[in-house]
């Protein structure tokens, strides 16, 4: 059963890594604007592709 000590250590370490990742995301401003990216993803650059094809 002593393996539990190791396993708990692993799980906490993993959780700490995620917490750290969240802190990093927060600090680098990834959560500052939570709305615009949801719109941006729907806008495509098909116009540009049409242009490029016509140039070829």
């Amino acid at each position, binding site marked *: *059963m002593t393996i539990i000590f190791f396993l708990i250590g692993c799980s*906490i370490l993993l*959780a700490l890594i995620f*917490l750290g990742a969240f802190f990093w995301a927060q600090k680098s401003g990834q*959560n500052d604007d939570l*709305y*615009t990216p949801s719109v941006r993803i*729907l806008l495509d650059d098909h116009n540009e592709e049409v242009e490029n094809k016509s140039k070829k």
Partner: protein
Amino acid sequence: MKESAIDGQTLCYHCGNECVEELHHVDAKAFCCQGCKSVYEILNANNLCSYYNYNQHPGANRAIVDARFEYLDNPTITSDLIDYSDDKITIVSFYIPAIHCSSCIWLLEQLNRINPAIHYSRIDFLKKQVIIRFSNPEISLRQVVELLFNIGYEPLISLQDVIKKQDKSRKDNLVQKIAVAGFCFGNVMLLSFPEYFGLSGVEQTFKHFFGWLNVLFCLPVVFYSGTEYFVSAWNNLRNKVLNIDFPLALGITVLFIRTITEVYTRTGAGFGDTLCGLVFFLLIGKFIQRKTYHHISFERDYRSFFPVAVSVIENDSEQHIPLSQLQTGHRIVIRHNEIIPADAILLKGEALIDFSFVTGEANPVSKILGEIIYAGGRQTGQAIEMEVIKPVSQSYLTQLWNNEAFSRRQGKDMQTFSQKVSKYFTVVLLVIAVSTLLYWLPVDYKKGLAAFTAVLIVACPCALALSTPFTMSAALSIFDKNFFYLKNTAIVEHLASIDTIVLDKTGTITTGDSKTIKFEGALSEKEKQLIYSACGNSSHPLSRMIYAHLNGHERLKTEEYAEVPGQGIMAVIDGHYLRVGNSKLVFGQKEDETQLSRVHVLLDNVYLGYFAFVHQYRPGLENISNLVPGYKLFLLSGDHDHEKYELLKFFKSQEAMYFDQSPQEKLDFINSLQRTGATVMMIGDGLNDAGALKQSNLGIALTDNVNNFSPGSDAILDGRSLIKLPVFLKFSKDTVHIIYLSFLISLTYNVIGLSYAVTGNLSPLVAAILMPLSTATIISFTSIATRLAAKRRKLI
């Protein structure tokens, strides 16, 4: 792509407005004005017409465009605007009110296709903000702004935005604190479960290990996430105030100390999970309460209304200087639609000043040379030159901001229900805790200490602290759906306690162009021309309106002219004798006072009929006037009293209406009402109401477009929703009742918990169940009850 047409109307391809006048056609697309057409042409030339594919008519109307950006060439002005700049690139962010749809995002992020010198542009949609990085040797800031302007996205550059940038609001890392608390809460729960389910003999070795791990997880929760409760409790104690943070801080401390002792002495598992859960839920409540409207500013003052820079004439050449450097003696040039930034004397040009924002006076006022013109007026017509006689901050209008009402601390010295209750709650809690200790002490001091700490733990007012934020934030989002934006959650309670409503007139209960003229009778073209010519001589608002109504005639020479104040005009024009005025002037007798806004016309002693002025007030004014038995209602207008009799039907008595009020008088009036014990709500729209809005217990700025300028206030109401104001007032009372009920519920939980605690038999398991259970009850009760109340009031 086809032209849009509804019921035979042609809609502008760019902005979607109806094309009324001449059409502008390009590529078989119709445009309502030259401005919209030119935007299309720019986009078309740059292959950016996908702009029109994402949304129909995405553009803003461009019929009236008038902007000058020369001042952006002056580095002292722009240095405040720019976020970052070196010798290669500049990064700048602008607030662009026109951003409203996905097309806007798409277009503004494609700026580099119009001008490659712009490297990067990024939109923050909710803040209506664009961040632009450009290569400054190739394109200047002014050119960037002009580019934005040319494609229909004029940035709003005002003095206050410049200042706002300098003192950016502090960050208190609330999200990070919640993350840490949540992280620890989860782990502690996991480690506490084996204890609750019972450990077999072999597993007893883990108990100690789990215990110490729990203590370890509690450390960041207490010393990082929970710090502000200690700070707040300490500050309040020093100010001799007992607020809800004191029992919370006490609870956290007791939980922490007891957990450490129990783990250290191996007497129990401790309350680690309760502690982490408590802090976690409390912080969530704090987060919920902090609703922010990114696109709305409640703190605007005259600075965001005034321009950033002024044109000054020095040594016969025109220069742009920042407003802050404007001094008395400077000679300034004010062009069409520009705002006069400081009190000044008119030196040159024909001034026709629109003071609607400053005084509430609806009609432009003409000024003669040598006259003093107060700051805040907007010039209409040709450019004028003026000499500044007072610095910006000392002018007639801006002096208002030196009033003590503006330096007073926010919070408006009105105690919320939760503040009132928590005072008594804390006292009762301490009394129970100490008497429990005293009761047990002679019997068993260990049990006494256990009971004492258990009382403090179980009575920790977590649910109590959460009921207000959750109810209020639910209420806030319901108001928000109805276009009523409140600055913070405390405002809902203020709204419920209002007993006096004060309304401004111009712009608040009337809209911009609110009057329609109708002539009862028949007029020939010749007669119209005569009336037109006669009214052209008068500066009375009604004459000006008739003059504007009959516009398009050739003005005839006036041979004789006399104006009887308060009655009308008598004139001889082209050999015809004309009387235009009220019945006293025309018939020689006074008529029913309510019909005062009729202007009768008598031509060569033949009565032709009368002009009827139909005032159009915002719909919903009747609803507000029906509030009267429950609320006191006043009108406070900066305008003259020529609408007095029509307003009488809304305000019942003449004593409730005050006209010709200066901004300072408005503030003083609110103050005098408050001294009689009234809780005053002021609804206004202009800078002239700013003082009254600030002084009142609840200042509401009414606006037709929330992105436009509105004076600093506690709430912003969209003009369309004025009709719902009585419902808002009722709903705010409902929310307060919901808070009372949820307080009752959380107190019940406290009593249940206390019955365990005073006996000294509080097990960690009971605490760990009771605390989240009460929290969950409160959260679900408040949100469901608030929604039900809103449904009943038909707000959702």
